[in-house]
């Protein structure tokens, strides 16, 4: 199997099929990125599309200065930032609390609600690092590149976020009011 970076290089050299393979590989993860951050389904479809359009348009300038994966989520991060700014202007809201209602068995459903509430109670910067790590599975340096912050900052934010979740899980802080 070709790596993401090999596919991107092939696409730069004019191989459209390589782009479609990358799209197939990442359409669900990018979609999930937006959904977990509270974007409604129809909008998530548009934003996912926007991310791949941006990749397409920037392909000429793309250089493998890190993993393709972190580049892609970096684009998604900026696309979401722009969408949120636009939404704020029109009075709407996208946040982790507005994320889709979970489907599935009751016990999981409760856990998911717990997770969503716990994430929503986190500081915004801490939450983003935690989500990039847990859901987009980025390494510390990749998350640092996406957010434009030093690796040590990623590590300290991640630690803070996880400690807050642990306190919540241990029931010491059930309402999430204390930090």
């Amino acid at each position, binding site marked *: 199997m070709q790596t993401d970076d090999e596919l991107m290089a092939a696409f730069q050299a004019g191989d459209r099929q390589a782009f479609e393979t990358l799209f197939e590989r990442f359409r669900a993860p990018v979609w999930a990125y937006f959904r977990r951050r509270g974007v409604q389904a129809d909008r998530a479809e548009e934003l996912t599309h926007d991310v791949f359009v941006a990749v397409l348009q920037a392909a*000429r300038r793309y250089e493998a200065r890190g993993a393709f994966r972190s580049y892609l989520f970096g684009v998604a991060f900026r696309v979401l930032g722009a969408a949120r700014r636009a939404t704020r202007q029109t009075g709407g809201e996208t946040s982790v609390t507005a994320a889709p209602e979970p489907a599935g068995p009751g016990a999981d459903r409760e*856990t998911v609600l717990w997770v969503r509430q716990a994430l929503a109670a986190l500081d915004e910067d801490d939450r983003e690092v935690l989500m990039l790590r847990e859901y987009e599975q980025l390494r510390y340096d990749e998350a640092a590149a996406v957010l*434009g912050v030093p690796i040590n900052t990623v590590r300290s934010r991640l630690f803070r976020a996880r400690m807050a979740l642990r306190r919540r899980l241990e029931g010491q802080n059930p309402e999430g009011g204390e930090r």
Partner: protein
Amino acid sequence: MTDTPHVSAEELMAFADGEVAAARAGEIGAHVQACPGCRRELDEHAAVGARLAVWKVDAPPATLTPPAGQAARPAPAPLARIGAVAAAAALVIAAVWAVRRPHEPPRVEAPSATAPAPAPPALDPGTFALAWAQQPRVDPGVSPGGSRVLIVAFMDWLCHPCHVSYQSYRPVLKRYEQRAPGQVKLVVRDWPWDSRCNPHVHGLEHPGACTAALVVRLARDRDKADEMMQWLFENMSRLQTLDPADAEREIQAEARRLLGIGSVDFDAAIAAARAGLDADIEAGAALDITQTPTFFINGVRVPSEHVNGPLTPESLDAAIAIELKRAARRA
């Protein structure tokens, strides 16, 4: 165990994430064996991770299909355009350019993790000249003045390969300055990987690179560029661990100390230098800079995107010699 290292809860988390250098991970692993508290800590981290993993989202709709279009155009790959006859020569030229990877994203690594750069193969002048002659040329947008060989270099002063190449080329350029005064001209332009001043940078950044570019400009005007660059080079790794605002403050403080300028004058000088920096960045964008350093030697781009490093001092020397001969033939 009396000699176990202290492991903070945060470091333990990084260990669980596989984000600790191998040597340290070995130490921590041994420590954890003998530390029930640490194992409990790791279990609790794992429990949080397991909870988060329960949250799955719906699948994307079938209507989410790939957007139409091609890469705007194939990536500029001058070497790929040269004829089949010269393909072998192109490989040679690619190999001799390769010293180290150009611009890496900001990363702090343990020294032991850095593999030594492979030694470049010996340069065959005939093959090099053949490949060089077939490279496409672009207009780098800088007047050569009275020089015969114009070298335009796009640099980021928080990029390790930029410093290394800048230092390793100096003796070559100095030799030409003695041998053929005024005929070889080096123009350094800025391409900071920092979106605070460079709107063409997306994703991977060098925090403080814009400030570094500005203070090197100030230092150049005051004949202190070498000292300023040396300080940036020595402090690069540390600066990359700071928040951008702190990195900028540190760079500015050092520049003020080195250049002996008061803060009011300093701010004015920085503001004045900004126009030149912006002009360089726009020139770089027009030339599709995707890595640093990127050199243009009489318009020949080195390295091209798929070559994995800047040119060696030997190939720089060879390229200048070829260009001087070419200019002499035309004169």
